[in-house]
């Protein structure tokens, strides 16, 4: 509610079919959760704007317009906002408002190239903005939408074009530890299962346990001001106790249980979000040995 204290107008923004539309629960900056209506690429955004005057006063205005904006906010070197999408409709020409008035609006077949995203230093958001221009302060009302992008199997998108391969690697420390790890695929849908195994070829360390972590790395900006930050999304213990030569530890990690973001590569040349699978071994003296490998994530219908 961007409600100014002495605002003479009450603006209500409603979307058509709000009750039947799918919603997404997202975390706000303050840690609470809010429900937003979900839209897809190419979908029409339509609804009504109702403006009421308070105390039955007459309010003069210089025009009412509604905009649909898509913006990327980065916190690189101070907060910067950059609009990649900007559509506008005029709802009313300059005049007077006496009684409550309702205006219909429709943004037809809007291309929504990117997914909505709320990260640590980057936010990508789509929102409707109603502006009643006045000689004194403008009255503004915003309503945020959420957008998901679904991967189409044969699209030209770089993620889809990447062939699915098995991830298999031989890593270790000379004469001390030698493991072979294998994951079924290099790219997964958000509801997929990571299936794989760890095979121990040489164990001269006293291993206490082994865990798998999912790490999201967000990178924003371009060199020399590029900033990266990593967040551990999940930590999962897959082995407790000391393994010996020849032992195989299976991996089965259901991704649906975690709050994951699909892999974003260089969105509008502003930011990227990548996910890594980190295998960590911890020994008796609390030393940590780890191997990270990237996994490509995509959203499936």
């Amino acid at each position, binding site marked *: 509610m961007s409600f100014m204290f002495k605002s003479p107008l009450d603006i209500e923004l409603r979307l058509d079919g709000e009750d039947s539309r799918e919603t997404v629960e997202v975390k706000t900056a303050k840690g609470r959760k809010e429900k937003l209506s979900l839209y897809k690429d190419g979908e029409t955004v339509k609804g009504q704007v109702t403006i009421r005057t308070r105390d039955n006063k007459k309010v003069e205005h210089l025009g009412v317009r509604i905009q649909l904006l898509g913006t990327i906010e980065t916190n690189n070197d101070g907060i910067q906002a950059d609009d990649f999408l900007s559509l506008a409709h005029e709802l009313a020409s300059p005049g007077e408002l006496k009684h409550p008035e309702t205006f219909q609006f429709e943004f037809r077949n809007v291309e929504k190239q990117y997914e909505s995203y709320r990260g640590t230093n980057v936010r990508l958001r789509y929102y409707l903005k109603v502006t009643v221009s006045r000689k004194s302060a403008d009255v503004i009302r915003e309503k945020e939408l959420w957008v998901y992008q679904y991967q189409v199997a044969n699209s030209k998108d770089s993620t889809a074009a990447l062939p699915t391969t098995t991830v298999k690697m031989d890593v270790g*420390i*000379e*004469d*001390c*530890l030698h493991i072979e790890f294998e994951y079924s695929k290099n790219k997964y849908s958000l509801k997929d299962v990571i299936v794989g195994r760890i*095979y121990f070829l*040489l*164990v*001269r*360390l*006293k*291993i206490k346990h082994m865990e798998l972590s999912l790490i999201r790395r967000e990178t924003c900006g371009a060199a020399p001001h590029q900033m990266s930050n990593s967040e551990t999304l999940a930590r999962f213990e897959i082995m407790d106790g*000391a393994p*010996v*030569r*020849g*032992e*195989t530890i299976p991996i089965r990690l259901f991704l649906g249980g975690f709050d994951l973001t699909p892999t974003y590569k260089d969105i509008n040349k502003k930011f990227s979000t990548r996910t890594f699978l980190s295998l960590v071994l911890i*020994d*008796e*003296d609390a*030393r940590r040995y780890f191997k990270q490998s990237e996994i490509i994530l995509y959203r499936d219908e």
Partner: protein
Amino acid sequence: MPTANPFQSFDSSITHKPIKEHKQTFDELYGEPENFLEVEVIKPVTHGNKSSSMYTDYEIVCRTNIPAFKKRFSRVRRRYSDFDSFRKILESETTRVVIPKLPEKSLLNYSNRFNDDFIEERRKGLEKFLIVVSGHPLLQTGSKSLISFIQDDVWDKNKFL
């Protein structure tokens, strides 16, 4: 004539992608693990009777099957100043590894340094230090002084300076 065997298990009818099965040998499963390493610091003994020449030394016992160590079993005696010189050499040998601290020098406790409690605290600290250092994979394979300190009959710091 029926072509399918009614007693065939479901498993064999599903085509598996050939997963490389690694079968462990009996020895691999139940034999001695390859990471066997036991290091102890025990039996403190105070030598000498003139207060100017008294000192305490400790026994280091090492049992292991790790090839980086020269012997499978060793028993040697070392005193605190030996640990001190060894630690300095270790720090100079590696830039990547953080070497843990030794228990305190007895400068503040000089009059008590042959006290049983003090010696026991010191013994525990030295043991902890040696366990962490000897178990480190980069030191086991990378440090020339580590194996010598633990297993050579006599510790000669000058060989490594």
